[in-house]
């Protein structure tokens, strides 16, 4: 998902809220009006907003389910993985079972940790955060990613894991040499 999409929605809705808030604030002082009619009108507005908000949230909720990153849902959307990569985190390095991946393939990363919690985060060639999952000791989290853009992808740790955390990074290649078996 392009992170700027939700950001734009956030700005639009947040902006609308700010305008509504400002309108009330601007009318807060001045000669007081009778409260009861305002209270009644507010009740009607509440019922209206309740219906509208529940409706919008239900639509967003249902739409989001198909985009869940969890393996059964992701496999239905992206297709079954054709490549598997074992990922092991350990203070403060990543070990990937392979670092050259084909473009256009669905890849399953089986992510675990040998010590503390880490965050396996993939940044694309454009520097955009593509996907992530936790690397947790004692558990293997399966993350499915479909790579379309070839290039070098960076892996960073996104779960703070001690002072050298900022240096915990590695890279893998998609396409090019990654297309060769």
């Amino acid at each position, binding site marked *: 998902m392009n992170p700027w999409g*939700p950001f734009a929605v956030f700005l639009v809705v947040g902006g609308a809220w700010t305008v509504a808030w400002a309108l*009330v604030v601007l009318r807060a002082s001045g000669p007081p009006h009778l409260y009861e009619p305002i209270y009644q009108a507010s009740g009607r507005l509440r019922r209206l907003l*309740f219906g509208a908000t529940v409706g919008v*949230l239900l639509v967003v909720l249902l739409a989001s389910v198909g985009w869940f*990153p969890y393996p059964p849902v992701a496999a239905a959307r992206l297709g079954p993985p054709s490549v598997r990569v074992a990922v092991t985190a350990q*203070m403060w390095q990543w070990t990937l079972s392979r670092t050259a991946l084909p473009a256009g393939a669905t890849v399953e990363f089986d992510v675990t940790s040998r010590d503390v919690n880490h965050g396996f985060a993939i940044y694309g060639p454009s520097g955009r955060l593509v996907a992530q999952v936790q690397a947790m000791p004692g558990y293997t989290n399966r993350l499915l990613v479909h790579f379309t853009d070839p290039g070098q992808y960076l892996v960073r740790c996104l779960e703070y894991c001690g002072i050298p955390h900022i240096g915990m990074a590695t890279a893998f290649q998609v396409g090019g040499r990654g297309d060769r078996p």
Partner: protein
Amino acid sequence: MSRTLLTERNGPVLRTALLYLAAGFALFLAMGLLGLAMRLDHATLLPLPPALYDEFFTLHGAGMIAAILLGAMGGTVAVLSPHADLDPRLLWMGFVFYVLGVGYIPLAVLLGGFAAGWTVLYPLPLAYQAGWTPWSSFAFLLGYLFVALGFGVWCLAVTLATARAYRGVGRALGWPLVFLGRAQPAPPPLHVIVATVIALYGMGTVLVGAAYLLPLFGQTFGLTGAVSALLMKNLVFLFGHNMVNLTIYLGAGLVYATLPVYAHRPWKTSRLSAATINLLFLSILLPFFHHLYQDFANPLPFHALGEIGSYGTGLPVLLVTVLGGLTLVYRAGLRWAVPSILILIGFWGWVFGGLGALVDATIPVNQVYHNTLWVPAHFHTYYLLGAVAFVWAFFYHLVADLGQAHESAASRAAAWMYGLGGAGFVLMFFVAGAAGMPRRYAIPLSGTGEPALATLAVGFTALLGIALVWLSSDLLRALGPAWRKTLAAPEHPALAPGESRG
């Protein structure tokens, strides 16, 4: 709509309230300086060694939560005190435990180098190769234990007081109105119901904290082996999530008690509002599951529940509390004062930050926002511009109510500047988060625009800082007279059993 909270018998309780609020406010200012240092680091204006940056965010996170909760606890006992007789001894005991706990935190961080973050995510605190000493880890966790203990004692004091005043916990929660529609006898004011819900929920939260800390202590001394990292993560996030949310709702409770004074209108205890507050037992709990999204090993229904719960929680906040507050002030002839300005800013921040939270609570979005600066962006918004604004609004209201107000036009300008500076400050976080800048990262990541965004944030922080210095000076001047006013009030013996002050 009493103009003053001081009665002839609640002086000792109001003194503890002032103490809680003043200590919380001082801690908030100190932790704010650490926040500024971290933004200066990202702006590359004052680069910090990574170890120091990590210590700062550990201290800042733990200290800020402790500070605002302490202030909210103080404010809450103040607004309860005209309605219920709280035991000052319990409040003092809670304060001593709490402050003792808070004292361990800087000791562990600044002397022992502890820097595992305020989330102390198991087993990181015990991974001493990360750069800290075993004793500092123990001291930090001990600090949490005492803070939780202090909070637990406070919860007990509040529950006992409201249950006694309203002849039962159910009546203090407004259940006759909620479940039977009985408006007689008069239900408790909304802030009493909030305090009772939070106190009950808070005692459960303390138990969750203990369940998290005990295995850590056991392992520290070699008494127990390793436990499930997933279980421990779920526990610590349940504890932390609760503590933060309890603070926010305590802040909202203060608004119920304060805003009517400035709007000259009553905030009635309606069946809907009382039921909504009782729903906090669920609406605080359910969104907790959104902390688990990235732990794919958790059951899928947990994740779905996190999204549903997060969406659901937004509804009562927006449609009952915030809409109720805005209705109260709409064409009310509102008296513009520092508290009323801060409360209105708080409504804006609570909803704006809540929107940021809803976006992040949408699971596909969380894939690209989790653990980026979007996370501090949204919680700073509904904290700094929500709960914090509510709590300091009440602090200002209380000292003005008890003592002599030092408010001037400049004070009101400072209150607005707090909102403006705060809004600019958090917006930079939002942009950097969407650009993929990780949180808890000692260096700005190239390609995220972070040095420039952090530089702008520092500028907005300057506005915030000027506003806080001005408001602090008002508070400082009013605090002494307020304290003396509580000493002057005659004190009477406690209520007879069964006698209600409601």
